[in-house]
């Protein structure tokens, strides 16, 4: 049996952390892109489109992320689409992230007074001009803090990808535990690494919230 020194354990965990970060980034970028598109569609005020977006949001918010991952990974391969654990993890995390971001951003846009839209209309701005010059600049200020805050959920969500066999931080932790039988040490380290990733983001989100509150 191979002996693992503390150094070996830490080195392996840190190496795996790279994959956790990469998966989080991919999910966040994917989720943001999809959420932006859906938010823009929602704003067109077409009832059919709004219903579709609503169903999308409720579907992915109302089911466990793990089930979504299973469906993406096992479900798609049963339908004949080969998909890697990496692909399935990104896909399901994108669904998950976008469903929440659409709701967060909807709230941010809705907090802007209706008068902003009306004043823009009365000045002759088109819908897209209103969005670009009036609504988005204000909504982005309001939305930044909760969006950064939510990225913490995405990072923690990536841990579930270990279940479908994607080798990231949690998965390597499990593997090391199987080899060393030192669960307390290993999972404490794993948790600590997640904390180091997430805590600065939480702090940053709080900082942003304060900053924008003062200027309003």
């Amino acid at each position, binding site marked *: 049996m191979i002996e693992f020194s503390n150094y070996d354990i830490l080195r392996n965990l840190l190496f795996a952390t790279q994959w956790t970060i990469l998966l989080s980034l991919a999910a966040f970028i994917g989720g943001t892109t999809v959420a932006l598109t859906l938010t823009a569609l929602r704003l067109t005020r077409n009832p059919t489109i709004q219903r579709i977006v609503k169903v999308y949001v409720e579907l992915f918010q109302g089911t466990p992320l793990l089930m979504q991952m299973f469906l993406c990974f096992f479900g798609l391969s049963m339908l004949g689409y080969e998909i890697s654990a990496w692909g399935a993890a990104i896909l399901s995390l994108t669904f998950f992230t976008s469903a929440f971001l659409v709701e967060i951003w909807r709230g941010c846009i809705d907090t802007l007074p209706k008068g*902003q839209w*009306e*004043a823009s209309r*009365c*000045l002759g701005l088109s819908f897209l001009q209103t969005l670009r010059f009036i609504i988005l600049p204000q909504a982005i200020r309001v939305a930044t803090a909760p969006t950064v805050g939510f990225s913490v959920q995405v990072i923690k969500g990536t841990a579930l990808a270990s279940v479908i066999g994607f080798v990231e931080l949690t998965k390597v932790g499990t593997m090391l535990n199987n080899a060393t039988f030192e669960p307390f040490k290993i999972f404490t380290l794993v948790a600590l690494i997640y904390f180091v990733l997430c805590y600065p983001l939480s702090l940053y989100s709080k900082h942003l919230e304060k900053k924008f509150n003062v200027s*309003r």
Partner: protein
Amino acid sequence: MSLVNLHQVHKYYGDHHVLKGIDLDIKAGEVVSIIGKSGSGKSTLLRCINGLEQYQQGGITVDGKEVTTDDIQMRRLALSVGMIFQNFNLFPHMTVGENVMLAPTIVLKKSKAEAEATARAMLEKVGLAEKFDSFPEKLSGGQQQRVAIARALAMSPKVLLCDEITSALDPELVGEVLKVLEQLAKEGITLVLVTHEMNFARDVGSRVVFMHQGKVWEQGDSKTLLSNPQTDELKQFIGAVL
């Protein structure tokens, strides 16, 4: 020649019949005050004139063109109708100058220099030239409302609609906004205002329109009408507010 014409305008919010056949004709240069109890349809009437609200029957024309809530039509309308709101609705993320320059730049496609010159002139007119680089939140309510007036004027509208523009102001700030309006009236701009300022309606306005239960109940020359109301409803209303 009438600038704003309403012909048998009916408006419903669901089952609620808000405007019940409004006929109104406003000529260029008139200062028309619309008065009445809350819920009488005054604000709705104003919002129909600039296309913010849809009406179900009848017709409205401004400067000879039909008013609809259609987006393209609305943008054309914006060139002849300016609107001032009760809550100012300035854009809080832009400076005062940027607020006034925005529409001339992106709607009228004026050059930045030209738009800035117009903006400075309009702010001068409302007495706020020195606030060009301030943000709206740093201004008092009265100043914000004057910026809103400058912003509307920068589009050189043919008629300016004012929706209870002094109602959200502290009493001591009402005067400065009314003074600007009075100045505009003297310069001959057409004003249609929904207002509770009876003194202003009498002294500056040329005509008063009294609305009651979704109808134009009584209208006429401002001084005559307010000193000698014909209907009981208007007598009651004047008694209640004065």
